């Protein structure tokens, strides 16, 4: 178990190094960021000055190493557009996206897991079919469309919920639904197939044969098993949601990390883009690591061997 954790950690670090190289070179692919940063009316002298100030005249690998060095020591660079350090900027935007992601995941799980269990308990019935149709239909709806549909339905027609900004908790409901429902079908299908398998298993038959109540059988001896792969998938989906928040935050005018990324891309704010890419990738890497460990915690066969 210990060596497993060490190995996983090592791979995670290696992956993050490659990811950092990719995101660094991606931003520098266009050639000279100084030209873009200086603006259209800048003189060649001004551009050269910016180039020197930001170190863009140095060899590529030197630039990369100094960037990584600063990044690791907690200096995320300085935003050229916002004229402030990237660290505090991120700190302002991250809580919004994190809240949105957690709520979206909660929504996805609350819808998908019960539906999956019900579909598995009564396979090939109306409920199962409806769940399947919802899953297939759900996966065909891009989140920008579902966002717009939710705004139109609940914000404009019914006027139940606010549709823009992050002022109150109600502001988070529609974006969380828009972001979360996309993950729901995958979780539902996984719960359903996992439950179907476990309900056929010997230990569930034992539980039934020993007179345990149906709910005990289904939840304690069934769902407990079916949920193990769901945990891993849900964690991964949470990582996707952080990336996918770009769309939802843009539509709902939420000032989170996704929106910041989108704006920074349009403003060509190099340091901010790099920092966000790396932060999201690192979060995802840590989450998958956590998912593996959580799996081990849920399954004593992994934990104790």
């Amino acid at each position, binding site marked *: 178990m210990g060596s497993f954790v060490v190995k996983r950690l090592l*791979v995670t670090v*290696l*992956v*993050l190094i*490659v*990811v950092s190289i*990719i*995101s660094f070179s*991606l*931003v520098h*692919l*266009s050639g000279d960021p100084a030209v873009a940063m200086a603006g259209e009316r800048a003189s060649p002298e001004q551009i050269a000055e910016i180039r020197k100030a930001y170190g863009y005249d140095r060899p590529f690998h030197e630039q990369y190493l100094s960037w990584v060095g600063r990044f690791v020591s907690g200096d995320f660079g300085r935003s050229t557009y916002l004229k402030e350090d990237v660290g505090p900027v991120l700190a302002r935007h991250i809580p919004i996206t994190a809240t949105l992601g957690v709520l979206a995941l909660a929504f996805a799980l609350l819808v998908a897991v019960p539906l999956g269990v019900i579909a598995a308990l009564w396979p090939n019935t109306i409920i199962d079919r409806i769940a399947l149709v919802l899953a*297939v*239909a759900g*996966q*065909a*709806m*891009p*989140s*920008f*469309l579902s966002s*717009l*549909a939710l*705004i*139109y339905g609940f914000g*404009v027609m019914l006027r139940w919920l606010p549709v823009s900004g992050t002022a109150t908790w109600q502001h988070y409901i529609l974006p969380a639904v828009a972001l979360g429902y996309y993950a729901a079908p995958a979780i539902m*299908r996984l719960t359903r*197939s996992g439950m179907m398998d476990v309900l056929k298993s010997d230990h569930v038959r034992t539980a039934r044969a020993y007179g345990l109540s149906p709910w005990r059988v289904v939840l304690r001896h069934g769902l407990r098993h079916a949920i193990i792969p769901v945990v891993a998938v849900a964690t*991964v989906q949470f*990582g*996707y949601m*952080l*990336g*996918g928040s*770009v*769309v939802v935050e*843009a539509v709902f005018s939420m000032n989170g990390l*996704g929106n910041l*990324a*989108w704006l920074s*891309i*349009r403003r*060509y704010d190099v340091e901010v*883009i790099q920092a*966000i*890419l790396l932060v*999201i*990738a690192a979060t*995802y*890497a840590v989450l*998958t690591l956590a998912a593996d460990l959580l799996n081990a915690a849920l399954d004593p066969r992994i934990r104790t061997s």
Partner: protein
Amino acid sequence: MADTSLIDGASASISAAPAAKPMPTPGQIALRRMARHPGFWFGGIVLGVFVLAAIAAPLLTPYDPGTQDLARRLAAPVWNSAGSWQHPLGTDHLGRDYLALLLYGARISLFVGFATVLISGLIGTVLGVAAGYWGGRVDLFVNFLLTVRLTLPVVLVALVAVAVLGQSLPLLVLVIGGLLWDRLVIVTRTATQQLVGREFVTAARAIGSSTPRILMREILPNITSALIVVGTLELARAILMEATLTFLGLGIQPPLTSWGLMISEAKSQFLFRPWLIAIPGTALILLILAINILGDALRDVLSPEGRA
């Protein structure tokens, strides 16, 4: 559907008496199962209609999607009381015929989808087959690449790439294709691994067939069905990705048009003329739905044992 007796014969042979009828080939069985699968019909027909409509766009509408007619801007579709058959789906904020935009937009969406799947299919197959066939270090390396790819936030990386490299159609295809190969690798790798252990591959090795020959003659033909299934599902993912990037303003650019662009441009009109979003939105959902259902049907038919 004319002759189902063969299928019945096949299942009856499981019971006591073996059937005397000739066994149908796996291909025949798959075709028959396909003909019976409603998902195959729905998905296939809808996708077919979209493809045909996109190809035959000039025949289906007299308008050019680029022609602006400011006098007729924001005309309502025909089912609206203010609409007329002159522009069945109305016009947009620049007076362009919405049906023409929809039809020509389908061309872009489908082109991006298919072209992307060709690229991601190539990357995914090469990596997946290599990992599955050689295993060991190659497998570890491919697995590492896969982890790196999964760790990258796709939408963000695509946005940055398009913003940095410039916004052209071929580039968009390259960027999406270069990102969406993860599931293809996973599936081809597993399929190849299963094949490598089978007798006919061992036999081919034993008689001294060269590696490229084994890969082309034994491995590739036998992973095509798995490849077709994921490829179909990836087609839907690629089309969604294009629409998303375009919606965010960093994908397809005018004068080209796509459904994502139509939705993006209609955002400001959304409260007063919701149909401007509903029309391309419905088309997009219907297309994705059809492709996904077709993919699921293909999976049921081609690899019944591999149902998720």
